[in-house]
């Protein structure tokens, strides 16, 4: 797979994937026309409806019962769609970290191999702390490129944010300054999609489900009326509104965490051989046009594992059938 296509991100979350169908702001007004010109300036694309999938927390290399099965299943699901999405976004923890020499690079290679099977035009990704937390993102950048960047697609402005490479859960002053400058070009009505790894708010700080300067980041986004934030890290679905922004977490493609409001301890939900993809799924997001501009609707898409369900079927696939 060439690097250019890989930088175009398609996001599919195994456990829960998010399919985002977005309709760009109607450009009937002078402001809309200017926005269309601005957003289309870099890549020549004109505003038009499109779909995006979000995949998250594939943790390639993590020694769990499913291995990469959920990830591969998600790829199959996306590829089976009658109409392929325009983009897939991976929101971090592409790989599980290791300090064995050469092994982490191999895991990144394996990730690219599986993701490369996606039959989509563009794939984009951001790192998770397991990808970039130990070395400041050095290996990740050598394989995937920049950890934060932006691009435009059919009337929407996409922003990839890195809140993992600094070891602490934070975006940092330099990147926030870049974000402020990046956003300054756009009017308040511009539809903006931010994708990152950790939640940009205090979801559960004692589980490290937060970003230290998340408030500052959200303040930079606050003036904009159509902001959607996609993230991972928490291995479960979640929806939050902050001002006019809507923030959606996607499930993982390896294991799930419980609802933090129901339990005290952050412990992974045990694997269930009878329901191997339980708590995993795909999140679908549909966008619609209205009088007030772009709207994004998020819903769950179940992971159809009927042909692989049951103990007998999975024993053929599990790395350790005795589990």
């Amino acid at each position, binding site marked *: 797979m060439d690097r250019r296509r890989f930088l175009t991100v398609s996001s599919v979350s195994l456990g829960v994937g998010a399919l985002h169908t977005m309709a760009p702001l109607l450009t009937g007004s002078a402001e809309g026309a200017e926005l269309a010109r601005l957003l289309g300036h870099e890549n020549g694309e004109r505003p038009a409806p499109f779909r995006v999938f979000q995949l998250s927390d594939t943790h390639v290399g993590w020694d769990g019962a499913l291995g990469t099965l959920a990830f591969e299943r998600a790829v199959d699901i996306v590829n089976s769609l009658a109409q392929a999405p325009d983009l897939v976004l991976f929101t971090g923890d592409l790989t599980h970290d290791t300090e064995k020499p050469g092994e982490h690079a191999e895991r990144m290679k394996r990730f690219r191999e599986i993701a490369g099977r996606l039959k989509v035009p563009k794939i984009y990704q951001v790192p998770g702390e397991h990808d970039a937390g130990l070395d400041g993102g050095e290996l990740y950048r050598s394989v995937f490129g920049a950890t934060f960047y932006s691009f435009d697609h059919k009337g929407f402005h996409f922003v990839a944010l890195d809140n993992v490479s600094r070891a602490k*859960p934070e975006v940092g002053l330099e990147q926030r300054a870049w974000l402020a400058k990046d956003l300054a070009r756009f009017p308040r009505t511009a539809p903006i999609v931010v994708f990152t790894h950790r939640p940009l708010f205090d979801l559960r700080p*004692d589980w490290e489900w937060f970003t230290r300067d998340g408030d500052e980041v959200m303040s930079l986004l606050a003036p904009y009326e159509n902001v959607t934030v996609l993230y991972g890290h928490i291995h479960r679905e979640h929806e939050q509104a902050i001002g006019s922004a809507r923030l959606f977490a996607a499930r993982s493609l390896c294991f799930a965490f419980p609802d933090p409001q129901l339990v005290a301890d952050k412990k992974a939900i045990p694997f269930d051989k009878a329901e191997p993809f339980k708590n995993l799924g795909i999140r679908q997001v549909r966008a619609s046009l209205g009088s007030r501009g772009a709207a994004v609707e998020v819903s769950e898409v179940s992971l159809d594992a009927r042909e692989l369900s049951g103990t007998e079927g999975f024993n053929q696939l599990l790395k350790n059938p005795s589990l």
Partner: protein
Amino acid sequence: MHSHIRLTAALVLSAAAFTMDDRGVRAAEEPRVITITAKRFEFSPKEITIQQGETVKLLLRTDDVTHGFFVRPLGIDEEIVPGKTTEVVVTPRTQGRYTTICDHFCGAGHGGMKMTIVVEAGTAAGKVGP
């Protein structure tokens, strides 16, 4: 007149006997010291107990790499760097069990690295904390 002078003198002497420094701690009283050691992927001890209103000095050390020591409700947000002891003075005001995490990514087991600070109702009420 004389009783007024005697009363004033008594009040001045009392104040001198109970001089408080900036932290509200009696000048002659040193805080209890608790040493906490971090290593991948655990803190030792896993749990400590402090009384409500008690001032405690935490000495934070690491046996390997840099770790974080973060517990927002207690206002603690520190880095534990190899070769250096980080000192934190805390006077918790509210009872409860507070989860303290490592928030400096330290490896594959980082997500489970935590300890508990228990704040119990105690006899140290009245001390002014930070």
